[in-house]
């Protein structure tokens, strides 16, 4: 049967796989046949993810991206069984709600480290011939890169940086048969959204702005799966909205 969404035997590295969109993506990709390499800081939560995956051949790596300037060791471990990677999903993210009078360089650094600098380092490593067999990279950006909320100056900037970086990187990576795109989720039910609610962002107001209401992590995971699959083989350097139709 013709199934261009089939990811059988494709090895895909997923950061932020212990919760939210990262976890939902790992589960979704496993259902499509992918062999996943899960990466996050918390081993217990990674185990919670891995027991929910379908099929076998998955593995996890415990690592803190904020502490990893050189990620060679992560990629060495990812391919140690002899199979190179076909995909990379950067879903690890960090969000702060900070007014401008409190927005110091130190506070911005952590968010930039995880959301943007880690993304670039992951792409730098993935693009080495010894780690990939061509493939597709997906960065989980945010609707905040297009429609910013108050006190999200740095978060929005970090996600907008991912978006434009994907376009710039697509120019270099095409020659290596690597596509790169970002997905821009709107508000979805995740622990990060709950954290933003607690930090003063009114999620019920945001929900009203999305024509399809609040989303689920699986609805973003399916877009990521599409961007990893052969169905999107003519798409690179783009930022794909998965925001339930938010125009205000």
């Amino acid at each position: 049967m013709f199934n261009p969404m089939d990811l059988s035997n494709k090895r895909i590295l997923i950061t932020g796989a212990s919760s939210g969109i990262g976890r939902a993506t790992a589960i979704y990709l496993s259902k499509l046949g992918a062999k996943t390499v899960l990466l996050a800081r918390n081993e217990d939560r990674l185990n919670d993810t891995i027991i929910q995956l379908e099929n076998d051949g998955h593995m996890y790596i415990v690592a803190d991206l904020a502490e990893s300037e050189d990620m060679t060791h992560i990629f060495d471990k990812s391919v140690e069984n002899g199979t190179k990677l076909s995909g990379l999903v950067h879903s690890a993210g960090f969000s702060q709600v900070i007014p401008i009078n409190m927005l110091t360089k130190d506070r911005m650094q952590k968010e930039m480290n995880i959301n943007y600098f880690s993304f670039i380092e992951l792409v730098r490593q993935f693009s080495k011939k010894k780690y990939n067999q061509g493939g597709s990279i997906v960065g989980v950006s945010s609707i905040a890169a297009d429609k910013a909320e108050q006190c999200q100056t740095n978060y929005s900037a970090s996600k907008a940086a991912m978006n434009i970086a994907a376009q710039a990187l697509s120019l270099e990576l095409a020659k290596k048969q690597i596509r790169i795109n970002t997905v821009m989720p709107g508000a979805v039910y995740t622990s990060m959204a709950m954290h933003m609610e607690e930090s003063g962002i009114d999620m019920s107001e945001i929900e009203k702005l999305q024509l399809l209401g609040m989303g689920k992590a699986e609805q973003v995971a399916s877009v990521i799966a599409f961007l990893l699959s052969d169905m999107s083989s003519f798409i690179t350097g783009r930022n794909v909205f998965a925001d339930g139709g938010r125009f205000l």
Partner: protein
Amino acid sequence: MSEKEKIELLEEMMDLDPHSLTKDTVLAKLDEWDSITILSFIVLLDEEFNKSVKAPEIRSLVTIADALNMME
């Protein structure tokens, strides 16, 4: 830095397998020797050798030996 180490730096920069370059390798015959690699070489010369070199100078190089001469 030894000549061997410099060649290893060039191999890493071009994402080539170890021992794939020799002093006689002709740059124009390498698929990896493109405009992006020339920019990478500018950064490498700046970071590792504290040298500021412009792209036209690098484009005029013929062999790996020429590149090694710049790496001083």
